[in-house]
Structures are given as C-alpha cells and as structure tokens.
C-alpha cells in the first residue's frame, strides 16, 4: 500500500537524531511493548508480514504521531482484536472478560529462548528455475497495490541489475494477508542512484534492494 511507512526519498524529516551512549531502551514501557509484541506473536495467530502490515495500516497521521514502540503496542492491540484474542469491549473497558480458550499455555521463558535462537527463516523451496541470472537487467513494475508489498515506491518502474540471488523466500504480499506463503525467487537488484534520483546523485552510487521475482520483468 502507498502510505507513510514507505519513506525512502521523502524530504523534510530533518537531521538524524543521534545520541551518545544510547541505552537499549529509553523507558521501561518501551521494553514491555517490545516484549508483549514478540511474546504475542508466538501464538501464531499472525505472521511477521501481517505484523508489519498492521503497522502500515495505522493512518499516516497516526504513524507519524506515534513513536516506534507506540506503533508496536497500538498495532498489537489491533492484531489481537482482529485475531479474536481480545474484544473491542475489553479494549474500551480496560478489563478482560474471562480467560482465553486456546487450550494451551502462552509461551514461557524457555520457549522464548528457543525463538530467539532459532528465529523464523523465510527461505522456502521453489519448484521453478530462477528467471534471472546475476548480471541480468530488469525493470520493476509500477503497480500501486493496496496490499502489503516490499517494493518501495522510490524504486517502482526503474531499471536495475541483478547482483545476488537468495533462492526461494516466502512472499510477503500474500503472507501478510494469510493467503499463503507462495514462495518466489528473491534477488538483490542494484539501481544506480541516478536512475532513482536523477542527475544530482553521484554517478558512482547505487542502492541495492531485495526484490521478489513477481516485482520484476526482463529489461
């Protein structure tokens, strides 16, 4: 979807907010928000892509008003309601009505350590041969899908070159909407800075973007 989360190339956000000796978390509530979001993900009611899409579905005004961890906790509330784990009445009242009926216990500390260690690899076997080889030139599509997608707007309709092939990876555009993992070949595509931003860019510079097969056509 074309929204504010897709920030590459926007002007006006000012200088980079640098901070010496930055703590891991600035406030206890930030750590709690992170932990709640990650622990709730372990129920498997949504996946990583659906979680990202929940952040993107904040309105642009909400997205820019909320800080990083406020986005996390707000979209977590949205995800829990959409998954039927909490009701809007419970959210509004700030009071739970009864306990969950999922038939198992929530993830415990040992389970968390397993998730941290093993992660959730996105690589998947793909039956078809890759359409592109290293060095091939490609065009990105110009679609403006309303669904979750990982082709940034600043790189749509641009010509680039395949520089890495990562094998098959599940496809966020379908996975985020629970329409299947639908794995595709994943490539890194190099775009010259001038192709993306025009003449003021340094002619040597480039931007490398990881893109799935269906974002690309031969150039």
């Amino acid at each position, binding site marked *: 979807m074309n929204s504010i989360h897709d920030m590459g190339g926007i002007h006006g956000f000012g200088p980079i907010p640098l901070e010496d000796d930055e703590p*891991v978390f600035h406030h206890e509530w930030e750590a709690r928000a*992170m*932990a709640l979001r990650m622990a709730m993900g372990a129920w498997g009611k949504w996946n990583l892509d659906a979680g990202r899409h929940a952040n993107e579905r904040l309105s642009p005004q909400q997205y820019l008003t909320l800080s990083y961890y406020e986005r996390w906790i707000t979209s977590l509330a949205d995800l829990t309601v959409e998954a039927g784990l909490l009701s809007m009445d419970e959210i509004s009242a700030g009071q739970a009505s009864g306990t969950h009926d999922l038939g198992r216990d929530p993830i415990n500390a040992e389970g968390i350590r397993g998730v941290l260690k093993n992660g959730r690899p996105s690589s998947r076997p793909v039956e078809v041969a890759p359409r592109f080889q290293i060095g091939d030139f490609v065009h990105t599509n110009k679609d403006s899908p309303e669904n979750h997608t990982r082709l*940034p707007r600043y790189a749509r309709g641009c010509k680039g070159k395949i520089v890495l092939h990562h094998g098959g990876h599940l496809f966020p555009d379908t996975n985020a909407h629970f329409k299947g993992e639908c794995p595709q070949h994943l490539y890194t595509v190099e775009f010259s800075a001038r192709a993306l931003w025009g003449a003021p860019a340094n002619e*040597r510079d480039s931007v*490398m973007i990881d*893109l799935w097969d269906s974002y690309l056509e031969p150039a």
Partner: protein
Amino acid sequence: MSSGHHHEDDHHHDHHHGSLTHSHLPSDPVLRVKAIETLLTQKGLVDPAALDALIDAYQNRIGPQIGAKIIALAWSDPDFRAELLRDATKVIGDMGFTGLQGEHIVAVENTDDVHNVVVCTLCSCYPWSILGIPPVWYKSEAYRSRVVIDPRGVLSEFGVDIVPEKQVRVWDSTAEIRYLVIPQRPHGAQDLSVEQLAALVTRDSMVGTGLPKTLGEAT
C-alpha cells in the same frame, strides 16, 4: 495487485481509516502499554516470565559485541573473512549467532573503492541476532527517508565523509536478508589480538554509518 474498489463488507476494515484501537486506548504511552499488558495478563495470554526473558536477552546478552567478535575474526583470519563473504549465514550460524531477525545474513565489505551502508526504508529491519535492538536513529523517519536519496549528506552527519571518487552502496533491507558491513581494518591494527580488534569495532561501523575506532581512540 492493482488498485480496486472497496467491497461493502470490507467497510469496517478499510485500511485507510487506520488503527481500530488507537482512539480507544490511553494516549499516554506508559498507560497504553500498561492497559494492553493488563488485559493480556488477565486473559492468560502472556506469561510474565517470558516477557522478562525477552527483555533480559536484549538488555544483557544480544548486542553489538556479537557482531564485533565476527568482524574481529574477519580482520584477523583471511580464510574466515572469505567464508563470511561467501556464506555469512553458515559461518555465523556455526558460531551460534543466527537467530530471530538474523536468520539470513549477507556480509558486505568496505574497501578503498566502496563504502556500504544499511537501511530499512519500509520499517526498521536490522540484524538483531548480531547487533541487538536497533538504535533510535536507525528507526527514525529522518534516516529511513534520507539515506537512500542523500547517503553522503547523511553519512557526513555521522562524521563520515566519503570522497566523491568512492562508491556508496546503500542496502535497503526489504526482505529477510540482514546485512552486516565489514568495515576496513584500522591502520596499524595488524598485530592486535582478536579481543583487541573487537574493541575497535563500533555498532555504527557494522551498519556503515561509522568507522571503527583508531588505535589511539581505543586506548
């Protein structure tokens, strides 16, 4: 994939209206997180010990000291460096440092001719398993929007000035591949131990927004 009409029955889920729960939650972030944590705990959906384990892991165990160890080895052992460049996921996995948000890793090396810098313009993807939680600047609107269009200007705000003759490659982490920059080894560091080398490696140098400490700075 192309834009279409909203279906009547989608009305309540219309993406463009933003968060379902935002206006029903306390606006103060402390109270907002507390409200969600209270609901999820009452409901039996989270185990407080799991939350503590997550926070402990990122506050005390998983951080840039892991990445620094990897870089120090790459600086001291040419075979290790070659393997890291060839298959970082395998090498780092054998060390026990792949994991959540570090399932697939590609190492890219800075040279006399190329400077690499990493961003996620769409959200804030970052190699958590080897660098820990991303700093505020990495997650900021300013960094995400600007580094792809003006990498040299952004780098100079970090105190890193790249000569025009050197190529800047910006890696936009749009998939589940996480990028680790191998900075150039400081001059005069060839005789240092791996531990001494690791002390020169900064977090920002592994993202590409900084340079390693010089020998003088380390003492």
